[in-house]
């Protein structure tokens, strides 16, 4: 334990004494994202967006029966050479506020719990309690 503390204090001294290290973020960074799974999903969505157009074009080459087979096989190879996360199947819908992966109200991109809470306090435009 004493060794651990001495190491920590030495590290602290090192960080304070060396400005190029103290420029780094030592404290944890707060983001607007709820957890790391949300950030991972976001990263994948960005990759999907980046490659979406190219993927669409290559897929049209792959999935027609007009061009010769050689071209279509080439296009197959090109599709498989794309990064794994370039495909939409790698993403998963999550709540935009709580990152909950289940029970989503799709139109609002919110989990049912958050959605219900907002609706209860009249924060959702056009949402009305069922009455008959």
């Amino acid at each position, binding site marked *: 334990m004493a060794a651990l503390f001495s*190491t920590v204090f030495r590290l602290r001294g090192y960080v304070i004494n060396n400005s190029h290290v103290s420029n780094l973020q030592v404290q944890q960074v707060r983001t607007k994202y709820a957890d790391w799974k949300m950030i991972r999903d976001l990263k994948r969505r960005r990759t999907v967006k980046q490659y979406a157009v190219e993927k669409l074009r290559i897929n049209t080459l792959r999935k027609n029966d007009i061009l*010769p087979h050689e071209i279509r096989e080439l296009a197959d190879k090109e599709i498989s050479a794309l990064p794994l996360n370039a495909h939409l199947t790698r993403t998963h819908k999550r709540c935009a506020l709580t990152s909950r992966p289940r029970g989503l109200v799709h139109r609002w991109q919110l989990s049912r719990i958050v959605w219900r809470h907002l609706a209860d306090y009249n924060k959702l435009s056009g949402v009305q309690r069922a009455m008959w």
Partner: protein
Amino acid sequence: MVFVEDLEDLVVIRDAQHRSVEVLGGALPSLESFTGLSVMPREAVLSLVATHAAEAGNVYNFRDCMCPSVPYTYFLENLEKQLYCSPSDAQESRLTGNQTPRSWFSITLTLTVLMLKLYKSLVSAAQDVAETLGGDVKQTESELLQKLLSRSGNSESTGQEETTAKPAMNLSDLIAGMKVDHSPKETALPSEGRAQQVRRILSRHGAASQQRGARLQGEERELSDGRVNLFDSPPMGILKPINKSQPQNGEVPVLKTWQRLQERELKMAVTHPPSNIYEEMIQWTDQGKLWKFPINNEQGLEEEAKVFFAEHVFLERHLEGWCPPRGPVRHFMELVCVGLSKNPYITVKDKLEHIEWYRHYLEDKKVLLAEAGAITEDSSSLQSSAQ
């Protein structure tokens, strides 16, 4: 090592090592440090190591394991080398007084390994000596070992006048110098009035808080004392320098944030909130939150409205000049154009980019296409367009 220097009850042993080396002759060249005066906190090291070994769940009997005729300086030096990254590190840390020892588990391990090594070398040395002497080798060897190993007990039991300066520190010795504090606890005197009590408590509290404040300030000063240089790293650019020309004109420099806030407050004071739902809806329409009348499906598409409808729909003219007039390539590109013309969601620029991409792609693959018979020699306008 610091605990060697700090402890007073150092044990000086010079006889056992000296004589053992004399007996063994030059058989232990690696243990030349035998001859020097060896100073070590013998009991302290033993007790420390034993307790920490016990703590670490590894109970070794170090008294048994340790051969007493081994010079402690030797294994202390080795221990130091093991404890620190390198001898130079050890030297440095000894100079600066900073110590980062490894865990006690590793210390105990190192000690046992060292002791075993020394014991083995001792035995082998005894063997060598016995062989050089000749005669009954086994007997001389055993005699030598017996002498060497038994010397330890002698040195501890009989040679007290020359071996030990002081005995090991005892718990009773420690306690002997202490006294139980019998002085009465500071309590409020009964003669003291209520008001005096309160005043005393308050003053004490104030003093304590002042002390705490002073201590905090001291810590801050310590931190900032030559350690952190504010202007060392490149600035983040979140603070803009005030324009220095303004104060020269005799004006007060404009503080933009305050100005903005003042303007906002003025606006809030002048404008009234919508008095009814219609006024509110008018406001929303102005802010672009509601549809404007008459309803137009292409509201907000001002840029796209400049592009003529035919640009979106008739795309086949962009195939002229590079696409072969007939064959599978032409067929495919015509289908692409039809698909694009039916897509209302992308701009004309995007559609043209699609066609350009296919053009480059097919030009790259024109050898393959020719081999497959998709483009013939006479209709190879892909090639002509590429040039």
